[in-house]
């Protein structure tokens, strides 16, 4: 929903880090993006192609690892995803506790050329 803003921050942040690291260019940007973060891959890539020229990230590949909303049921000692109707444990029906809210927006690592 807000890929232009996010991608703009992404390009600036990676360009800055790459310069600090003495890179001549960035080959790959490895991202971790939660499924619930409102970021659509196609839009991210579209804006990336638009914003990257003239920076060290021009031509870089984007890899996106997805995380998702996960809960933990203490009684059943297991993790589970939401059913869509509630956040209850599908095994015992008790309410679990969130362990990952699926809203990550992380730059995990960069493959750079120096």
């Amino acid at each position, binding site marked *: *929903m*807000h890929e232009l*803003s*996010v991608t703009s*921050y*992404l390009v*600036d*942040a990676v360009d*800055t*880090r790459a310069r600090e*690291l003495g890179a*001549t260019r960035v*080959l790959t940007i490895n*991202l971790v993006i*939660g499924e*619930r*973060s*409102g970021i659509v891959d196609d839009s991210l890539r579209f804006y990336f192609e638009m914003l990257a020229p003239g920076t060290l990230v021009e031509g870089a590949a984007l890899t996106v690892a997805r995380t998702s*909303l996960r*809960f933990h049921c203490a009684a059943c000692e297991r993790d589970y995803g*939401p059913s*869509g*109707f*509630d*956040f*209850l444990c599908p095994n015992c029906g008790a*309410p*679990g*506790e*969130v362990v990952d*809210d*699926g*809203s990550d*927006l*992380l*730059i*995990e*690592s*960069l*493959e*750079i*050329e*120096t």
Partner: protein
Amino acid sequence: MSARTVKLVEIAERVLVDNDQVATGVRSRLEAAGVLAVNIIAGPGAGKTSLISRMLAALGGRARVGVIEGDISGSVDTARVLAAGAADAVQINTGGNCHLEADMIERALADLDLSALDLLFIENVGNLVCPTHWRLGEHVKLCLVGASEGDDKPLKYPEIFAVSDVVVLNKIDLIEFVDFDHARFVESVRALNRNAPIFEVSCRSDAGIDALAGWLQAQRKRLGEDFQCASR
């Protein structure tokens, strides 16, 4: 000429790291002035401006309150909160952006006399998704939902409930008319967030308004004592 080398470097930073740095600066300025900032996040029509107006009335002379109004366009909300007794108010028009960012708050602070304030409400753009990701330098992230929007909001927009410091359910006077399943709502919020207090209010009848105003006052008093929101 030296050979080029390729290496993998771990970064492990938020994509929005530059925004977060500006937000940290905003928070430092607020704390130096003893101002508690509350970022209000809600969908359109949940009652953000009404809640601010009722907080102004409930706090009365006990706190000097400033407001930053974020909207895509227009300044009707700024006029409303000034009429309701805000000490100062600044309008931010995002021009289409679906959320406020920290540098917008930094610029708005230039138009506010922080030394004349105790509390600053930041009314984010009406949207339960995008504002979640942008830290603004606030001390309290307040998620507001109206009962008439339905009890399924935590199921559909879980991240905002997961990261909020306080959840406010507004329009409780409408519950009996709109098939709002109260137990289901509370259970869903609790699954996402064990600690955030849930306040149930009506901006029409003033039910619950004093309790929320009291909680905000308590958060304000804790500023300067290594502030960490009480819910964390």
